[in-house]
């Protein structure tokens, strides 16, 4: 089969299209023929060697396809099942051997491409809006990077819950996307101070929750715009990691709450993984959650996909099609 392999960490050129044997399922595994694999920033980090992965390895942590073979002890899926997964390495390939308990069924109303695109970002948006801080109708949420991959999905979910969404974005074009996704207010942080604007938009009261994947550049101001007892959900650090901070700051700014979640802890059991993916697929099938799949690349053009992702020229999801 064809696969994208990294032999030495490096730039996009470190990704090579290679010919490998089709994997055979080991105990508790299923082999899936891929129809779509998601391209994510974590793939870039793996390619660059920021996270240590034994070399050589097949890149990619997200995909969808059809089961072709299962180990004798696998009961949860069977050949012919359409499935999707996230957080298991090896999906930039025509086939992947995967732990069967990490595969979720794709319902009839959802395409393989939609399923692959949803696994990481939409499940992240789902746990943020429903579990990290269970957002309620009429609450106000500040969503940073609202036109980003997770941001755009989170904005839709928050809007669907009935919350008021204040979105931060970098450009007018992205502001339009955020508004279409349901943002009630959009702040162009390149032109206006989001702390001042959020205070104005909330009449000084502040927001119930801040969803922040930006990190270093937004954290402090985010604490300033939370209402007393509000929640800071810090789920990424695209501008750099938030430095260590004195917890008394949380008291001084109003008995605030902080969490630093990651998806793995919100899909830790097979039950929760299946329930969460089922909820997300349900929203997609019902048309209440729209994914923007804007960029499809043949598997052989993985390098171009990475260059465009890193160049931040893309909005919406990038998929490789084996």
């Amino acid at each position, binding site marked *: 089969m064809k696969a994208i392999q990294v032999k030495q960490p490096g730039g996009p050129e470190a990704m090579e299209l290679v010919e490998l044997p089709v994997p055979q399922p080991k105990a508790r595994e299923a082999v899936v023929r891929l129809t779509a694999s998601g391209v994510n920033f974590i793939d870039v980090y793996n390619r660059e060697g920021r996270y240590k992965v034994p070399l050589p390895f097949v890149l990619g942590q997200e995909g969808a396809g059809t089961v072709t073979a299962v180990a004798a002890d696998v009961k949860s899926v069977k050949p012919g099942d359409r499935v999707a997964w996230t957080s298991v390495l090896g999906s930039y390939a025509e086939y992947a051997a995967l732990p069967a308990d990490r595969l979720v069924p794709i319902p009839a109303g959802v395409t393989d491409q939609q399923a692959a695109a949803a696994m990481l970002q939409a499940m992240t948006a789902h746990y943020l809006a429903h579990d990290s801080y269970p957002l309620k109708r009429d609450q106000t949420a500040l969503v940073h990077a609202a036109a980003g991959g997770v941001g755009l999905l989170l904005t839709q979910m928050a809007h669907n819950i009935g919350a008021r969404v204040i979105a931060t974005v970098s450009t007018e074009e992205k502001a339009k996307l955020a508004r279409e996704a349901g943002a009630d207010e959009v702040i162009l942080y390149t032109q206006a101070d989001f702390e001042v604007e959020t205070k104005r938009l909330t009449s000084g009261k502040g927001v119930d929750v801040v969803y922040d994947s930006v990190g270093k550049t937004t954290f402090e101001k985010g604490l300033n715009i939370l209402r*007393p007892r509000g929640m800071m959900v810090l789920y990424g650090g695209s501008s750099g990691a938030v430095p260590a*901070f004195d*917890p*008394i700051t949380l008291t001084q700014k109003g*008995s605030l709450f902080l969490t*630093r979640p990651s998806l793995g802890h*919100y899909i830790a059991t097979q039950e929760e993984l299946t329930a969460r993916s089922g909820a997300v697929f349900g929203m997609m099938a019902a048309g209440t959650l729209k994914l923007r799949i804007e960029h499809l690349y043949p598997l052989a053009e993985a390098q171009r996909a990475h260059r465009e992702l890193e160049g931040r020229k893309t909005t919406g999801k990038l998929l490789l099609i084996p």
Partner: protein
Amino acid sequence: MLPASILQTNTEVFRPGKNAGLRITRIRGLPRENMKAIRVQHTGGPEVMELVDVPLPQPKATEALVQVSVAGVNSIDAQFRDGRLRTPLPFIPGQEGAGVVTALGSRAKMVKVGDRVAWSGTLGSYAEYVAGPEEHLVPVPASITDDQAAAAMMHGLTAHYLVNDAHKLKAGETALVHAAAGGVGLLVVQLAHAIGARVIGTVSSEEKGKVAREAGADEVIVFTHQDFEAEVKRLTGGKGVEVVYDGVGQATFEKNLNVMRLRGMLVLYGMSSGPVPPVDPAKLSEKGSLYMARTTLAHFTATREELIARTSALFRLIAEGRLNVRIAKQYPLAEAAEAHRDLEARKTTGKLLLIPSPNQIRRSLGKS
């Protein structure tokens, strides 16, 4: 907080028979012209608290003057006394108490003369009278004593918001309560137990362990000779607890992060061992998408509605006998320094109270 003008009136160390030189402002309708109070002129040890005669404070427009029957002793008082927390000098310590309204400012309307009230967060309570904002005063029902009300205000309200709001504890959850025989801890244990949660308490001695068990702790860890991290893991089958209630701070912080289940909550509400050093948020992620809060009572009683609702709920629990506010000792107001010494020596279990009128001490003790 008392207005500085009151604190800076012409006062003098109280010596019987030597009142000459005191400037006395006559306030119409007030029962007396001056009162006894504990005053701090310079920050320092317990000895800086002096019993003095000062003019009765005069309530401002939206304040009420209260005759203090009981003043609660809290560690925050010691922090103001020794300068860890700052307030303009000289000042009358004490943040908490109960008593009867004796006079009202011109625009006060939430309480009336004769009302039994309790309060917290009003500096100046170590005195026979205190003037404070009327919105801090909460009614005390007939079913509970002034001692109970005063003792419950800071610790009781804190325990109440911890288990109901900072982390809404549910039946079947497991809570780790540090300093489980301490002022707040002992009340958290009772409330958590009443909710139906499993309570693991940490204490410093076997004796305090017994007190925590009596309050409803299911498991007690004597941290002076058991590692609480290892013990909590063992007691929870490696799963960890849903919530940690921590008023200890520095000494327990790191290990707390290792004893919580995935997505567990650490509620920091104090720092008796010192402040927690800076926290790298990434640690919360690594240890299981944890939550932390650093809370203080004022934000959980910020509106009059919430203050009244919370105190009513608390007083009801006390009146129904479901929450036992343990009173360790009563001291005459003049012995405030001794009360602070006892508090700081950590040799008492339960609340310390100052009683401005010696007759009341006899009466209260006679009852128990």
